[in-house]
Protein backbone atom coordinates (compact mmCIF):
# COMPACT_ATOMS: atom_id res chain seq x y z
CA UNK A 1 0.00 0.00 0.00
CA UNK A 2 1.50 3.42 -0.88
CA UNK A 3 1.37 6.22 1.65
CA UNK A 4 1.80 9.97 1.93
CA UNK A 5 3.68 11.88 4.66
CA UNK A 6 3.00 15.57 5.27
CA UNK A 7 5.09 18.06 7.28
CA UNK A 8 3.18 21.27 7.90
CA UNK A 9 4.33 23.84 8.74
CA UNK A 10 8.07 24.39 8.39
CA UNK A 11 9.51 26.35 11.30
CA UNK A 12 12.31 28.90 11.39
CA UNK A 13 11.66 29.94 7.81
CA UNK A 14 9.77 33.05 6.70
CA UNK A 15 6.30 32.02 5.61
CA UNK A 16 4.10 28.94 5.72
CA UNK A 17 5.40 25.73 4.13
CA UNK A 18 4.08 22.21 3.95
CA UNK A 19 5.78 18.98 2.96
CA UNK A 20 4.09 15.85 1.64
CA UNK A 21 5.80 12.53 1.16
CA UNK A 22 4.20 9.78 -0.93
CA UNK A 23 5.11 6.21 -0.10
CA UNK A 24 4.51 3.02 -2.10
CA UNK A 25 3.17 -0.25 -0.78
CA UNK A 26 6.59 -1.12 0.68
CA UNK A 27 6.85 2.22 2.49
CA UNK A 28 9.50 3.39 0.01
CA UNK A 29 9.35 7.02 -1.03
CA UNK A 30 7.78 7.50 -4.46
CA UNK A 31 7.94 11.30 -4.41
CA UNK A 32 8.04 14.32 -2.09
CA UNK A 33 6.88 17.90 -2.48
CA UNK A 34 7.49 21.22 -0.76
CA UNK A 35 4.22 23.15 -1.01
CA UNK A 36 3.84 26.85 -0.45
CA UNK A 37 0.27 27.50 0.45
CA UNK A 38 0.04 31.24 0.94
CA UNK A 39 -1.13 33.68 -1.65
CA UNK A 40 -1.08 37.44 -1.68
CA UNK A 41 -0.94 38.79 -5.22
CA UNK A 42 1.29 41.86 -4.90
CA UNK A 43 1.92 41.88 -8.65
CA UNK A 44 -1.75 42.50 -9.26
CA UNK A 45 -2.69 45.10 -6.72
CA UNK A 46 0.24 47.34 -7.55
CA UNK A 47 -1.23 47.82 -11.00
CA UNK A 48 -2.78 51.27 -11.42
CA UNK A 49 -0.47 52.90 -8.89
CA UNK A 50 1.90 55.64 -10.11
CA UNK A 51 5.33 54.22 -10.84
CA UNK A 52 7.12 56.30 -8.23
CA UNK A 53 5.14 54.53 -5.52
CA UNK A 54 6.57 51.11 -6.45
CA UNK A 55 9.77 51.21 -4.33
CA UNK A 56 7.70 52.20 -1.31
CA UNK A 57 4.82 49.76 -1.84
CA UNK A 58 6.67 46.60 -2.82
CA UNK A 59 8.98 46.65 0.18
CA UNK A 60 5.87 45.81 2.21
CA UNK A 61 6.21 42.31 0.78
CA UNK A 62 8.51 41.54 3.63
CA UNK A 63 9.67 42.68 7.06
CA UNK A 64 13.02 40.93 6.68
CA UNK A 65 14.28 42.08 3.29
CA UNK A 66 12.29 45.27 2.52
CA UNK A 67 15.52 47.02 1.54
CA UNK A 68 16.13 44.48 -1.22
CA UNK A 69 12.67 45.04 -2.70
CA UNK A 70 13.07 48.80 -2.28
CA UNK A 71 16.37 48.79 -4.19
CA UNK A 72 15.31 46.38 -6.95
CA UNK A 73 12.19 48.46 -7.56
CA UNK A 74 14.25 51.66 -7.44
CA UNK A 75 16.61 50.32 -10.11
CA UNK A 76 13.62 49.52 -12.31
CA UNK A 77 12.00 52.89 -11.73
CA UNK A 78 15.30 54.65 -12.50
CA UNK A 79 15.00 53.23 -16.00
CA UNK A 80 11.47 54.56 -16.35
CA UNK A 81 12.85 58.05 -15.70
CA UNK A 82 15.63 57.33 -18.21
CA UNK A 83 18.46 56.51 -15.82
CA UNK A 84 20.47 53.32 -16.25
CA UNK A 85 22.48 52.09 -13.24
CA UNK A 86 25.74 53.71 -14.33
CA UNK A 87 23.94 57.01 -15.07
CA UNK A 88 23.28 57.49 -11.37
CA UNK A 89 25.61 59.96 -9.68
CA UNK A 90 28.55 58.26 -7.95
CA UNK A 91 27.36 59.42 -4.50
CA UNK A 92 23.90 57.96 -5.17
CA UNK A 93 25.39 54.67 -6.34
CA UNK A 94 27.59 54.45 -3.27
CA UNK A 95 24.85 55.39 -0.81
CA UNK A 96 22.54 52.76 -2.33
CA UNK A 97 25.31 50.16 -2.14
CA UNK A 98 25.98 51.06 1.49
CA UNK A 99 22.28 50.47 2.20
CA UNK A 100 22.38 47.18 0.31
CA UNK A 101 25.48 45.87 2.09
CA UNK A 102 23.94 46.84 5.44
CA UNK A 103 20.83 44.87 4.51
CA UNK A 104 22.67 41.74 3.36
CA UNK A 105 24.93 41.91 6.43
CA UNK A 106 22.06 42.10 8.91
CA UNK A 107 19.96 39.50 7.09
CA UNK A 108 22.81 36.99 6.91
CA UNK A 109 23.62 37.65 10.58
CA UNK A 110 19.98 37.03 11.49
CA UNK A 111 19.90 33.80 9.54
CA UNK A 112 23.16 32.43 10.82
CA UNK A 113 22.96 33.41 14.48
CA UNK A 114 19.21 33.18 15.09
CA UNK A 115 18.03 30.48 12.71
CA UNK A 116 20.87 28.21 11.56
CA UNK A 117 23.38 28.20 14.41
CA UNK A 118 21.13 26.20 16.79
CA UNK A 119 21.21 23.29 14.31
CA UNK A 120 24.99 23.51 13.94
CA UNK A 121 25.79 24.04 17.61
CA UNK A 122 23.41 21.45 19.07
CA UNK A 123 22.85 19.08 16.13
CA UNK A 124 19.59 18.71 14.23
CA UNK A 125 18.58 15.79 16.42
CA UNK A 126 18.88 17.82 19.62
CA UNK A 127 15.84 18.59 21.75
CA UNK A 128 13.89 21.48 20.16
CA UNK A 129 13.58 22.96 23.65
CA UNK A 130 17.30 23.57 23.48
CA UNK A 131 17.87 23.85 19.70
CA UNK A 132 16.87 27.49 19.31
CA UNK A 133 18.26 30.97 19.73
CA UNK A 134 17.42 30.99 23.44
CA UNK A 135 19.50 27.85 23.82
CA UNK A 136 22.35 29.52 21.96
CA UNK A 137 22.09 32.54 24.25
CA UNK A 138 22.25 30.27 27.28
CA UNK A 139 25.23 28.14 26.23
CA UNK A 140 27.12 30.51 23.95
CA UNK A 141 26.39 34.01 25.32
CA UNK A 142 29.48 35.52 23.71
CA UNK A 143 28.43 34.23 20.29
CA UNK A 144 24.86 35.45 20.88
CA UNK A 145 26.11 38.92 21.83
CA UNK A 146 28.17 39.16 18.68
CA UNK A 147 25.27 37.97 16.56
CA UNK A 148 22.97 40.56 18.08
CA UNK A 149 25.45 43.39 17.61
CA UNK A 150 26.30 42.38 14.04
CA UNK A 151 22.63 42.41 13.13
CA UNK A 152 22.25 45.72 14.94
CA UNK A 153 25.16 47.20 13.00
CA UNK A 154 23.51 46.32 9.69
CA UNK A 155 20.19 47.68 10.88
CA UNK A 156 21.81 50.92 12.01
CA UNK A 157 23.32 51.30 8.52
CA UNK A 158 19.81 50.84 7.09
CA UNK A 159 18.47 53.42 9.54
CA UNK A 160 21.24 55.83 8.59
CA UNK A 161 20.45 55.65 4.88
CA UNK A 162 16.71 54.94 4.83
CA UNK A 163 15.54 56.66 8.02
CA UNK A 164 14.35 53.57 9.85
CA UNK A 165 15.28 49.92 10.18
CA UNK A 166 12.19 48.45 8.54
CA UNK A 167 10.33 49.94 5.60
CA UNK A 168 12.44 53.07 5.41
CA UNK A 169 12.74 55.11 2.23
CA UNK A 170 16.06 55.99 0.67
CA UNK A 171 15.61 56.12 -3.07
CA UNK A 172 13.91 58.54 -5.38
CA UNK A 173 13.63 58.01 -9.15
CA UNK A 174 17.14 58.66 -10.45
CA UNK A 175 18.91 58.84 -7.11
CA UNK A 176 18.63 59.00 -3.34
CA UNK A 177 16.96 61.40 -0.93
CA UNK A 178 19.80 62.29 1.38
CA UNK A 179 23.55 62.32 1.74
CA UNK A 180 25.48 61.04 4.75
CA UNK A 181 27.06 63.51 7.17
CA UNK A 182 30.50 63.26 8.77
CA UNK A 183 28.89 62.96 12.20
CA UNK A 184 26.57 60.19 11.02
CA UNK A 185 29.34 58.08 9.58
CA UNK A 186 31.63 58.54 12.57
CA UNK A 187 29.04 56.58 14.60
CA UNK A 188 30.05 53.51 12.57
CA UNK A 189 33.77 54.18 12.52
CA UNK A 190 34.80 55.33 16.00
CA UNK A 191 33.39 52.46 18.07
CA UNK A 192 32.15 54.76 20.84
CA UNK A 193 28.40 54.07 20.77
CA UNK A 194 28.42 50.97 18.58
CA UNK A 195 31.15 48.41 17.89
CA UNK A 196 33.03 49.81 14.90
CA UNK A 197 33.11 48.52 11.35
CA UNK A 198 36.61 47.19 12.06
CA UNK A 199 35.12 45.10 14.88
CA UNK A 200 32.46 43.85 12.45
CA UNK A 201 35.22 42.69 10.12
CA UNK A 202 37.07 40.97 12.98
CA UNK A 203 33.92 39.21 14.15
CA UNK A 204 33.08 38.15 10.60
CA UNK A 205 36.50 36.51 10.32
CA UNK A 206 35.96 34.81 13.69
CA UNK A 207 32.66 33.31 12.65
CA UNK A 208 34.16 32.02 9.42
CA UNK A 209 36.86 30.36 11.52
CA UNK A 210 34.05 28.75 13.50
CA UNK A 211 32.40 27.32 10.37
CA UNK A 212 35.74 26.08 9.02
CA UNK A 213 36.37 24.26 12.28
CA UNK A 214 32.82 22.88 12.14
CA UNK A 215 33.56 21.74 8.59
CA UNK A 216 36.63 19.84 9.72
CA UNK A 217 34.69 18.05 12.44
CA UNK A 218 31.54 17.37 10.43
CA UNK A 219 32.80 16.98 6.89
CA UNK A 220 30.87 13.81 6.12
CA UNK A 221 27.57 15.37 7.17
CA UNK A 222 28.20 18.59 5.25
CA UNK A 223 29.36 16.70 2.16
CA UNK A 224 26.41 14.37 1.99
CA UNK A 225 23.30 15.89 3.59
CA UNK A 226 20.91 17.18 0.89
CA UNK A 227 23.59 17.04 -1.78
CA UNK A 228 22.30 16.91 -5.36
CA UNK A 229 23.27 18.41 -8.71
CA UNK A 230 21.79 21.76 -9.72
CA UNK A 231 22.38 24.84 -11.80
CA UNK A 232 23.69 27.99 -10.06
CA UNK A 233 22.61 31.52 -10.92
CA UNK A 234 23.60 35.01 -9.85
CA UNK A 235 24.97 38.40 -10.80
CA UNK A 236 28.66 38.95 -11.49
CA UNK A 237 30.59 42.15 -12.11
CA UNK A 238 30.44 43.24 -15.71
CA UNK A 239 34.14 44.00 -15.95
CA UNK A 240 35.72 40.92 -14.39
CA UNK A 241 33.11 38.33 -13.34
CA UNK A 242 33.68 38.96 -9.62
CA UNK A 243 30.99 38.68 -6.93
CA UNK A 244 28.39 41.42 -7.41
CA UNK A 245 25.32 42.14 -5.29
CA UNK A 246 23.94 45.43 -6.64
CA UNK A 247 24.35 45.69 -10.42
CA UNK A 248 25.91 43.21 -12.82
CA UNK A 249 25.42 40.62 -15.52
CA UNK A 250 23.52 37.37 -15.08
CA UNK A 251 25.66 34.25 -15.08
CA UNK A 252 24.61 30.64 -14.60
CA UNK A 253 26.43 27.33 -14.62
CA UNK A 254 25.27 23.73 -14.58
CA UNK A 255 26.15 21.29 -11.82
CA UNK A 256 29.57 20.63 -13.35
CA UNK A 257 30.44 24.29 -13.76
CA UNK A 258 29.73 24.61 -17.49
CA UNK A 259 28.38 28.06 -18.33
CA UNK A 260 24.66 27.99 -19.16
CA UNK A 261 24.05 31.73 -19.09
CA UNK A 262 27.06 33.70 -20.22
CA UNK A 263 27.14 37.08 -18.49
CA UNK A 264 24.01 38.45 -20.15
CA UNK A 265 22.74 41.95 -19.32
CA UNK A 266 20.27 41.71 -16.46
CA UNK A 267 17.64 43.68 -18.41
CA UNK A 268 17.51 40.77 -20.90
CA UNK A 269 16.37 38.29 -18.23
CA UNK A 270 13.00 37.85 -19.95
CA UNK A 271 14.67 36.37 -23.03
CA UNK A 272 16.22 33.61 -20.97
CA UNK A 273 13.72 32.57 -18.29
CA UNK A 274 10.29 30.97 -18.12
CA UNK A 275 8.31 30.43 -14.94
CA UNK A 276 6.72 27.00 -14.60
CA UNK A 277 3.56 26.45 -12.55
CA UNK A 278 2.46 23.43 -10.51
CA UNK A 279 -1.06 22.95 -9.19
CA UNK A 280 0.16 22.00 -5.72
CA UNK A 281 2.03 25.25 -4.91
CA UNK A 282 1.54 29.00 -5.21
CA UNK A 283 5.28 29.26 -5.74
CA UNK A 284 6.38 29.28 -9.38
CA UNK A 285 9.37 27.38 -10.84
CA UNK A 286 11.72 29.59 -12.91
CA UNK A 287 14.03 27.87 -15.39
CA UNK A 288 16.29 28.66 -18.31
CA UNK A 289 14.31 28.47 -21.54
CA UNK A 290 17.03 26.89 -23.62
CA UNK A 291 17.54 24.03 -21.16
CA UNK A 292 13.93 23.41 -20.19
CA UNK A 293 11.87 22.88 -17.04
CA UNK A 294 13.45 19.59 -15.98
CA UNK A 295 17.10 20.61 -15.94
CA UNK A 296 17.07 24.37 -16.42
CA UNK A 297 16.38 25.31 -12.79
CA UNK A 298 19.03 27.00 -10.66
CA UNK A 299 19.91 27.54 -7.05
CA UNK A 300 20.44 31.16 -6.10
CA UNK A 301 21.88 32.78 -3.00
CA UNK A 302 25.24 32.56 -1.23
CA UNK A 303 26.28 29.09 -2.44
CA UNK A 304 25.39 29.88 -6.06
CA UNK A 305 27.09 33.29 -5.93
CA UNK A 306 30.34 31.96 -4.51
CA UNK A 307 30.20 29.11 -7.03
CA UNK A 308 29.80 31.24 -10.13
CA UNK A 309 31.99 34.26 -9.40
CA UNK A 310 35.61 34.51 -10.53
CA UNK A 311 36.75 36.32 -7.40
CA UNK A 312 35.85 38.83 -4.68
CA UNK A 313 37.18 42.37 -4.72
CA UNK A 314 37.87 42.64 -0.98
CA UNK A 315 41.02 40.92 0.28
CA UNK A 316 39.80 39.03 3.34
CA UNK A 317 36.65 37.70 1.67
CA UNK A 318 38.69 36.69 -1.38
CA UNK A 319 41.06 34.76 0.86
CA UNK A 320 38.06 32.95 2.37
CA UNK A 321 36.56 32.28 -1.08
CA UNK A 322 39.77 30.56 -2.07
CA UNK A 323 39.67 28.40 1.08
CA UNK A 324 36.03 27.55 0.29
CA UNK A 325 36.88 26.58 -3.27
CA UNK A 326 39.82 24.51 -2.06
CA UNK A 327 37.38 22.31 -0.11
CA UNK A 328 36.06 21.04 -3.48
CA UNK A 329 39.41 21.33 -5.27
CA UNK A 330 38.03 24.22 -7.28
CA UNK A 331 34.98 22.36 -8.56
CA UNK A 332 31.40 23.58 -8.38
CA UNK A 333 29.88 22.88 -4.97
CA UNK A 334 26.45 21.19 -5.00
CA UNK A 335 26.40 20.47 -1.27
CA UNK A 336 23.47 22.31 0.29
CA UNK A 337 24.95 22.63 3.78
CA UNK A 338 27.93 24.56 2.42
CA UNK A 339 25.46 27.40 1.90
CA UNK A 340 26.06 28.40 5.53
CA UNK A 341 29.81 28.73 4.91
CA UNK A 342 29.22 30.72 1.73
CA UNK A 343 26.82 33.01 3.59
CA UNK A 344 29.50 33.83 6.14
CA UNK A 345 32.00 34.69 3.40
CA UNK A 346 29.42 37.17 2.14
CA UNK A 347 29.03 38.61 5.63
CA UNK A 348 32.76 39.36 5.59
CA UNK A 349 32.54 40.79 2.07
CA UNK A 350 29.70 43.11 3.14
CA UNK A 351 31.65 44.26 6.19
CA UNK A 352 34.70 45.08 4.09
CA UNK A 353 32.58 46.88 1.52
CA UNK A 354 30.75 48.89 4.19
CA UNK A 355 34.13 50.03 5.55
CA UNK A 356 35.25 51.09 2.07
CA UNK A 357 32.03 53.03 1.49
CA UNK A 358 31.91 54.63 4.93
CA UNK A 359 35.44 55.93 4.43
CA UNK A 360 34.62 57.24 0.95
CA UNK A 361 33.92 60.99 0.93
CA UNK A 362 31.60 60.60 -2.06
CA UNK A 363 28.82 59.62 0.37
CA UNK A 364 29.05 63.16 1.84
CA UNK A 365 28.24 64.78 -1.52
CA UNK A 366 25.04 66.61 -2.42
CA UNK A 367 25.12 65.26 -6.00
CA UNK A 368 22.27 62.86 -5.43
CA UNK A 369 19.75 62.84 -8.30
CA UNK A 370 19.91 62.54 -12.10
CA UNK A 371 17.18 63.02 -14.71
CA UNK A 372 16.77 61.35 -18.10
CA UNK A 373 14.29 60.69 -20.86
CA UNK A 374 11.08 58.93 -19.81
CA UNK A 375 10.60 55.28 -20.84
CA UNK A 376 7.68 52.86 -20.49
CA UNK A 377 9.51 49.91 -18.99
CA UNK A 378 12.03 49.25 -16.22
CA UNK A 379 13.81 46.13 -15.00
CA UNK A 380 15.74 46.07 -11.74
CA UNK A 381 17.78 43.05 -10.68
CA UNK A 382 19.87 42.79 -7.55
CA UNK A 383 21.30 40.01 -5.45
CA UNK A 384 19.17 39.99 -2.32
CA UNK A 385 20.46 38.08 0.71
CA UNK A 386 18.64 34.95 -0.45
CA UNK A 387 19.54 35.32 -4.14
CA UNK A 388 18.66 36.91 -7.43
CA UNK A 389 15.70 39.29 -7.16
CA UNK A 390 13.94 40.56 -10.29
CA UNK A 391 11.51 43.50 -10.45
CA UNK A 392 9.96 44.35 -13.82
CA UNK A 393 7.43 47.16 -14.40
CA UNK A 394 5.59 48.59 -17.39
CA UNK A 395 3.77 51.93 -17.22
CA UNK A 396 1.25 53.80 -19.38
CA UNK A 397 1.34 57.40 -20.58
CA UNK A 398 -0.41 58.51 -17.38
CA UNK A 399 2.50 57.11 -15.31
CA UNK A 400 0.39 54.23 -13.97
CA UNK A 401 1.88 50.76 -13.57
CA UNK A 402 0.17 48.43 -16.04
CA UNK A 403 2.24 45.31 -15.48
CA UNK A 404 4.47 44.05 -12.69
CA UNK A 405 6.50 40.85 -12.59
CA UNK A 406 8.46 39.88 -9.51
CA UNK A 407 10.74 36.85 -9.41
CA UNK A 408 12.13 36.65 -5.91
CA UNK A 409 15.04 34.63 -4.63
CA UNK A 410 12.98 31.97 -2.92
CA UNK A 411 11.06 31.39 -6.16
CA UNK A 412 14.33 30.65 -7.96
CA UNK A 413 15.15 28.21 -5.17
CA UNK A 414 11.78 26.46 -5.34
CA UNK A 415 12.96 23.42 -7.28
CA UNK A 416 16.15 23.29 -5.21
CA UNK A 417 14.11 23.16 -2.00
CA UNK A 418 11.91 20.44 -3.48
CA UNK A 419 15.05 18.50 -4.36
CA UNK A 420 16.25 18.94 -0.77
CA UNK A 421 12.98 17.58 0.56
CA UNK A 422 13.17 14.63 -1.87
CA UNK A 423 16.73 13.92 -0.76
CA UNK A 424 15.70 13.77 2.90
CA UNK A 425 12.63 11.70 2.00
CA UNK A 426 14.68 9.18 0.02
CA UNK A 427 17.54 8.97 2.49
CA UNK A 428 15.94 9.43 5.89
CA UNK A 429 12.22 8.68 5.61
CA UNK A 430 11.97 5.87 3.09
CA UNK A 431 10.70 2.69 4.69
CA UNK A 432 9.42 4.45 7.80
CA UNK A 433 5.66 5.03 7.89
CA UNK A 434 5.57 7.11 11.07
CA UNK A 435 6.45 10.80 11.27
CA UNK A 436 9.16 11.30 13.85
CA UNK A 437 10.71 14.43 15.33
CA UNK A 438 13.98 13.56 13.60
CA UNK A 439 12.27 13.53 10.20
CA UNK A 440 10.73 16.92 10.85
CA UNK A 441 14.08 18.29 11.90
CA UNK A 442 15.97 16.99 8.89
CA UNK A 443 13.48 18.37 6.42
CA UNK A 444 13.63 21.72 8.17
CA UNK A 445 17.43 21.74 8.19
CA UNK A 446 17.50 21.04 4.45
CA UNK A 447 14.99 23.76 3.62
CA UNK A 448 16.43 26.25 6.08
CA UNK A 449 19.83 26.23 4.35
CA UNK A 450 18.15 28.26 1.61
CA UNK A 451 16.88 30.78 4.19
CA UNK A 452 13.58 30.80 2.30
CA UNK A 453 11.20 33.70 2.61
CA UNK A 454 7.89 32.19 1.57
CA UNK A 455 6.07 35.42 2.31
CA UNK A 456 8.17 37.15 -0.32
CA UNK A 457 7.98 34.32 -2.77
CA UNK A 458 4.23 34.12 -2.83
CA UNK A 459 4.07 37.82 -2.10
CA UNK A 460 2.12 36.63 0.90
CA UNK A 461 1.95 37.32 4.59
CA UNK A 462 1.65 34.68 7.21
CA UNK A 463 2.99 32.57 9.98
CA UNK A 464 5.72 30.06 9.56
CA UNK A 465 4.68 26.62 10.48
CA UNK A 466 5.64 23.08 9.24
CA UNK A 467 3.15 20.32 8.42
CA UNK A 468 4.24 16.80 7.49
CA UNK A 469 1.76 14.19 6.24
CA UNK A 470 2.17 10.62 5.00
CA UNK A 471 -0.27 9.44 2.32
CA UNK A 472 -0.84 5.93 1.10
CA UNK A 473 -1.24 5.02 -2.58
CA UNK A 474 -4.94 5.78 -2.36
CA UNK A 475 -4.42 9.27 -0.88
CA UNK A 476 -5.34 8.29 2.67
CA UNK A 477 -3.44 10.06 5.45
CA UNK A 478 -1.42 7.54 7.40
CA UNK A 479 0.28 9.95 9.75
CA UNK A 480 0.44 13.69 10.19
CA UNK A 481 2.30 16.07 12.44
CA UNK A 482 1.93 19.83 12.69
CA UNK A 483 4.51 22.05 14.34
CA UNK A 484 3.60 25.62 15.14
Amino acid at each position, binding site marked *: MSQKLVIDPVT*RVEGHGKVTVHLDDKNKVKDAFFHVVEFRGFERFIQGHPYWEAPVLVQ*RLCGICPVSHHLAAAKAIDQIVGIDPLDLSLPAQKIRKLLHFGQVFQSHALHFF*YLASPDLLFGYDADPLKRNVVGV*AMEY*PSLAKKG*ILMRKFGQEIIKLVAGKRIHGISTTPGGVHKKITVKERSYFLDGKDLPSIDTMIDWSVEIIDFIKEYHQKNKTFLDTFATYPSGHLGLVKKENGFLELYDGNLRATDAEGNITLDDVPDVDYNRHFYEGVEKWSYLKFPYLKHIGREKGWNRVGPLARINICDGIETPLAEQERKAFKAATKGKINNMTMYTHWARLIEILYCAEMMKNLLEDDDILSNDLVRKGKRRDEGIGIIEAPRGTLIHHYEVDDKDRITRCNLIVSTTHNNEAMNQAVRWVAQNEISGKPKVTEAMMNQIEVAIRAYDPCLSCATHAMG*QMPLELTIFDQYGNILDERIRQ
Partner: protein
Amino acid sequence: MKEYGNKILIIGIGNCGRADDGLGWAFIDKIKNSLPENFDCEYKYQLQVEDAELISHYNVVYFVDAHKEQFDTGFILSEGYPIATHSFSTHELDPRTVLYLAKSIYNKLPKSYILGISGVSFQLKTGLSDKAKENLSNALDFFNEKTLNLVI
Protein backbone atom coordinates in the same frame (compact mmCIF):
# COMPACT_ATOMS: atom_id res chain seq x y z
CA MET B 1 28.93 51.84 24.60
CA LYS B 2 26.27 54.45 25.21
CA GLU B 3 24.69 54.31 28.66
CA TYR B 4 21.10 55.37 28.96
CA GLY B 5 21.12 56.13 32.72
CA ASN B 6 17.94 55.91 34.78
CA LYS B 7 15.65 55.56 31.83
CA ILE B 8 12.26 54.18 30.99
CA LEU B 9 11.39 52.67 27.64
CA ILE B 10 7.96 52.21 26.08
CA ILE B 11 7.86 49.74 23.18
CA GLY B 12 4.72 49.93 21.04
CA ILE B 13 4.27 46.69 19.12
CA GLY B 14 1.96 46.30 16.14
CA ASN B 15 1.11 47.30 12.60
CA CYS B 16 -1.02 50.32 11.86
CA GLY B 17 -1.97 48.75 8.51
CA ARG B 18 -3.87 45.98 10.32
CA ALA B 19 -6.59 48.03 12.02
CA ASP B 20 -6.55 47.47 15.81
CA ASP B 21 -3.15 45.80 15.61
CA GLY B 22 -1.97 49.41 15.52
CA LEU B 23 -2.96 49.95 19.18
CA GLY B 24 0.64 49.70 20.41
CA TRP B 25 1.75 52.42 18.01
CA ALA B 26 -1.32 54.56 18.66
CA PHE B 27 -0.54 54.43 22.36
CA ILE B 28 2.89 55.93 21.70
CA ASP B 29 1.49 58.46 19.23
CA LYS B 30 -0.82 59.78 21.95
CA ILE B 31 1.64 59.86 24.78
CA LYS B 32 5.12 60.52 23.42
CA ASN B 33 4.97 64.32 23.43
CA SER B 34 3.87 64.53 27.04
CA LEU B 35 6.44 62.19 28.56
CA PRO B 36 9.27 63.36 30.83
CA GLU B 37 12.80 63.40 29.41
CA ASN B 38 13.83 60.11 30.96
CA PHE B 39 11.38 58.24 28.72
CA ASP B 40 12.17 56.82 25.30
CA CYS B 41 9.68 55.31 22.87
CA GLU B 42 10.15 52.68 20.15
CA TYR B 43 7.73 51.56 17.45
CA LYS B 44 8.09 47.89 16.47
CA TYR B 45 6.25 45.52 14.16
CA GLN B 46 7.37 42.66 16.35
CA LEU B 47 10.00 42.05 18.98
CA GLN B 48 13.35 40.66 17.88
CA VAL B 49 16.23 38.97 19.67
CA GLU B 50 18.30 42.15 19.52
CA ASP B 51 15.69 43.94 21.60
CA ALA B 52 17.31 42.16 24.53
CA GLU B 53 20.30 44.43 23.99
CA LEU B 54 18.04 47.47 23.75
CA ILE B 55 16.13 46.85 26.97
CA SER B 56 19.32 45.99 28.84
CA HIS B 57 20.07 49.74 28.86
CA TYR B 58 16.84 50.67 30.69
CA ASN B 59 15.58 50.44 34.25
CA VAL B 60 11.91 50.07 33.36
CA VAL B 61 10.35 48.80 30.15
CA TYR B 62 6.71 48.85 29.04
CA PHE B 63 5.65 46.54 26.22
CA VAL B 64 2.39 47.84 24.73
CA ASP B 65 0.51 45.65 22.27
CA ALA B 66 -2.98 44.91 21.02
CA HIS B 67 -4.78 42.06 22.78
CA LYS B 68 -7.40 39.82 21.21
CA GLU B 69 -9.15 39.18 24.52
CA GLN B 70 -11.83 41.59 25.70
CA PHE B 71 -11.42 43.05 29.18
CA ASP B 72 -13.97 45.04 31.19
CA THR B 73 -11.55 47.94 31.43
CA GLY B 74 -10.50 47.58 27.80
CA PHE B 75 -6.92 46.70 28.71
CA ILE B 76 -4.80 44.55 30.99
CA LEU B 77 -1.54 45.47 32.69
CA SER B 78 0.67 42.70 34.00
CA GLU B 79 4.18 42.58 35.33
CA GLY B 80 6.70 41.04 32.96
CA TYR B 81 8.97 38.22 34.02
CA PRO B 82 11.59 36.29 32.08
CA ILE B 83 10.68 32.96 30.55
CA ALA B 84 12.73 30.73 28.26
CA THR B 85 10.08 29.99 25.65
CA HIS B 86 11.58 27.75 23.00
CA SER B 87 9.74 28.99 19.96
CA PHE B 88 11.29 31.73 17.91
CA SER B 89 10.40 33.20 14.58
CA THR B 90 11.29 36.53 13.09
CA HIS B 91 7.58 37.28 13.11
CA GLU B 92 6.90 36.56 16.73
CA LEU B 93 8.84 36.81 19.97
CA ASP B 94 7.33 36.93 23.44
CA PRO B 95 8.30 39.94 25.60
CA ARG B 96 9.08 37.51 28.38
CA THR B 97 11.63 35.79 26.14
CA VAL B 98 13.24 39.13 25.40
CA LEU B 99 13.51 39.67 29.16
CA TYR B 100 15.02 36.22 29.52
CA LEU B 101 17.59 36.96 26.83
CA ALA B 102 18.48 40.29 28.44
CA LYS B 103 19.02 38.51 31.72
CA SER B 104 21.05 35.61 30.32
CA ILE B 105 23.15 37.48 27.76
CA TYR B 106 23.57 40.91 29.38
CA ASN B 107 22.90 40.07 33.01
CA LYS B 108 20.35 42.90 33.08
CA LEU B 109 16.71 42.53 33.99
CA PRO B 110 14.75 45.77 33.86
CA LYS B 111 11.50 46.08 35.74
CA SER B 112 8.88 45.48 33.09
CA TYR B 113 5.18 45.63 32.41
CA ILE B 114 3.08 44.30 29.57
CA LEU B 115 0.11 46.46 28.64
CA GLY B 116 -2.39 44.67 26.41
CA ILE B 117 -5.15 46.80 24.92
CA SER B 118 -8.20 44.99 23.57
CA GLY B 119 -8.77 45.17 19.83
CA VAL B 120 -11.68 43.77 17.89
CA SER B 121 -10.64 44.09 14.24
CA PHE B 122 -7.33 42.93 12.76
CA GLN B 123 -8.10 43.15 9.05
CA LEU B 124 -6.07 45.00 6.41
CA LYS B 125 -7.20 48.51 7.20
CA THR B 126 -5.68 51.74 8.41
CA GLY B 127 -7.22 53.15 11.56
CA LEU B 128 -8.59 51.82 14.83
CA SER B 129 -12.14 50.58 15.38
CA ASP B 130 -14.37 52.69 17.64
CA LYS B 131 -14.13 50.07 20.37
CA ALA B 132 -10.34 50.03 20.17
CA LYS B 133 -10.25 53.84 20.40
CA GLU B 134 -12.34 53.65 23.55
CA ASN B 135 -10.06 50.97 25.02
CA LEU B 136 -6.99 53.02 24.09
CA SER B 137 -8.43 56.04 25.85
CA ASN B 138 -9.03 53.98 29.00
CA ALA B 139 -5.50 52.59 28.88
CA LEU B 140 -4.02 56.07 28.44
CA ASP B 141 -6.04 57.45 31.36
CA PHE B 142 -4.87 54.62 33.56
CA PHE B 143 -1.28 54.99 32.45
CA ASN B 144 -1.24 58.75 32.99
CA GLU B 145 -3.03 58.70 36.32
CA LYS B 146 -1.67 55.59 37.99
CA THR B 147 1.26 53.99 36.30
CA LEU B 148 3.20 57.01 35.19
CA ASN B 149 3.31 58.45 38.69
CA LEU B 150 4.86 55.26 40.00
CA VAL B 151 7.85 55.30 37.74
CA ILE B 152 8.76 58.98 37.37
